[in-house]
């Protein structure tokens, strides 16, 4: 009995070691790859990367960075200007605006991450299927993709939330209704191009199954443009979800959200300083976040696509 457990533990240990070796090998190959070398020299990748890392760090450790609870009201402490204690001041309910912005970053990134997962898990298989099978399947899927791509995503998302109600998960689903199509189109294009490669022909010749060809040949070679698209999904998701919450058809309190807060603070814009700072400062954080992702995504796209480099 004990021996068996020991034996299992040993195999488990071995697997961990193997995984670590794999990851190390992958990282080393990544470091030597031309794309990575390009990224290290690109100013956009540096600036964007720092912003992205900062935002991700803030979202994960929101509890340590925020100096106050984002929802605790303190009516004796309303409309404070920026200070060391309240970097962005306090709002009409005496809440610390900086803490709300910090927790809002978490909401924004959760929506972005979930949207990437959902739309990739719909778009990737469909695009792969269309590109790999071709013919009628391809025609049918691409007709649908074209139709969906032509639709105004924001309006469809708003209608979805109006029907099914607000909330983080519903916002994600609402954005995924139209979001998957871009992923599908990209994946189809990639699959079509890869299918023509000699190594696919070779794999066919040695009698590999379709499943093996897809998982071992097509997917690994299509991964880089997919990563670029996933990166670009974040700024779009943050922008759209904040817009939806701003209109009142997105994330609802008590979840802190940039869009919802800005809508709540906009009525104090006409007041004398420091009241307008309530809309200015959180907005700047939001713009810098989206800008960082866009900047990093641009660099990443150029790094993976040498034709675009100048």
């Amino acid at each position, binding site marked *: 009995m004990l021996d068996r457990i020991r034996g299992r533990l040993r195999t488990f240990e071995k697997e961990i070691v193997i995984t670590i070796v794999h990851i190390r090998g992958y990282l080393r190959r990544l470091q030597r790859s031309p794309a990575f070398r390009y990224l290290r020299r690109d100013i956009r990748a540096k600036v964007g990367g720092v912003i992205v890392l900062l935002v991700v760090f803030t979202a994960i450790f929101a509890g340590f960075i925020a100096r106050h609870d984002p929802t605790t009201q303190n009516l004796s402490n309303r409309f404070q200007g920026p200070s060391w204690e309240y970097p962005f001041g306090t709002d009409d309910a005496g809440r610390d605006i900086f803490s709300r912005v910090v927790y809002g970053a978490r909401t924004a990134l959760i929506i972005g991450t979930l949207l990437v997962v959902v739309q990739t898990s719909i778009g990737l298989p469909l695009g792969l299927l269309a590109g790999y099978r071709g013919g009628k399947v391809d025609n049918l899927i691409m007709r649908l993709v*074209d*139709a969906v*791509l*032509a*639709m*105004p*995503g*924001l*309006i*469809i998302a*708003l*209608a979805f*939330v*109006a*029907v*099914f*109600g*607000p909330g983080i998960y519903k916002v994600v689903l609402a954005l995924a209704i139209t979001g998957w199509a871009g992923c599908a189109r990209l994946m189809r294009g990639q699959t079509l191009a890869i299918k023509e490669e000699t190594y696919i022909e070779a794999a066919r010749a040695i009698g590999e199954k379709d499943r093996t060809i897809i998982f071992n040949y097509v997917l690994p070679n299509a991964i880089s443009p997919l990563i670029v698209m996933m990166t670009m999904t974040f*700024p779009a998701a943050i*922008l759209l979800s*904040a*817009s939806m919450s*701003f*209109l*009142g*058809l997105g994330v*609802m309190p008590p979840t802190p959200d940039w*869009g919802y807060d*800005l*809508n709540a603070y*906009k009525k104090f*814009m*006409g007041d004398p300083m420091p009241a*307008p700072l309530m*809309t*200015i400062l959180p*907005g700047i954080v*939001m*713009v810098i976040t*989206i*800008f960082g992702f*866009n*900047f990093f995504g*641009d660099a990443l796209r150029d790094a993976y696509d040498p034709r*675009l480099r*100048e």
Partner: protein
Amino acid sequence: MYGFILKRLLLLIPIFFAVSIVVFLLLPLTGDPARQVLSGQGRMDVTPELLDNISHQYGFHRPLYIQYLRWLTGYPPADPGQGENVLVIPRGLLMGDFGFSYTRSRPVASLMLEALPQTLLLTFTAFILSLVIGLLLGIFSALRRKTLVDYTFMGTAIFGVSIPFFWQGLMMILIFVNWLKWFPIPTAGEHGLMYLILPAFTLATHSAASLARMTRSSMLDVLRQDYIRTARAKGLRERAVIYKHALKNAFIPVSTLLFLRLPFLFGGTVIMEVVFSWPGMGRLLVSAMGAYGSPAKDWFIVQGGVLMFLVIAVLANLLADITYAYLNPKIRYGEGG
């Protein structure tokens, strides 16, 4: 070319039916249409009898396909014998009847007819603005590649695609209305030229920025081509090379993007109209959708508004295809031309 357009026009018919089915289903998807009507009217005293009464008045008790047919064509007509109210049952989308708004007590069609021109005005102005700004910035950046001009323009452009409409709108109001007092305070009743400038410019920013980026990369791509070198080699003036040879070819990919931006612009209009109190379709639509968790929704306005936006998007897409085919003979003759 005409065959190509005809084929695309015929394709509109199934698309329209698909879109209309989806839009029609919005109300049944809520689960209880009669309750939606009552909460839209602000009625608190909801009893089973009342729900049943409303359900019959609006014809919600009928099977879904009958309801859809009636919503689309007005057939079968309202049957007072079953308690159906002739006033509130639509005479059919194809007859231009979008139903009767139960929150505003007016036909949805007349509400939309009032709002639509305002939305079109705003979107069209923004479209032209973004076209002019985007093309100019893009071309100049491409011609002055890797200079301060290029970096400034492209830096501005990437900021332009990163600013959310609503926050930019708020900042415009803060700076130009509250602080500088160049423009009047946006109010729902007023919509003259002075009220149009700020929302149109804000709406144009994002599209202008992405157009500029697209134009620049397309232009750079073209300038690398052999025929440009040939044109230069045979001694054409630089001006002729740029305007006659490069610009025309660089415009092909840009033109597609141009019309594909239209749905995006219409999405942005919704936000702009709310921020700037512009009396258009977007504001009507959002207020009918019951923002901020409010149960008071007007589904006939939602259906009409969403349908209108989707139809506009489909038409814009058609326009993009036709322009692309017109500018690019390869497509024109390759596909049923």
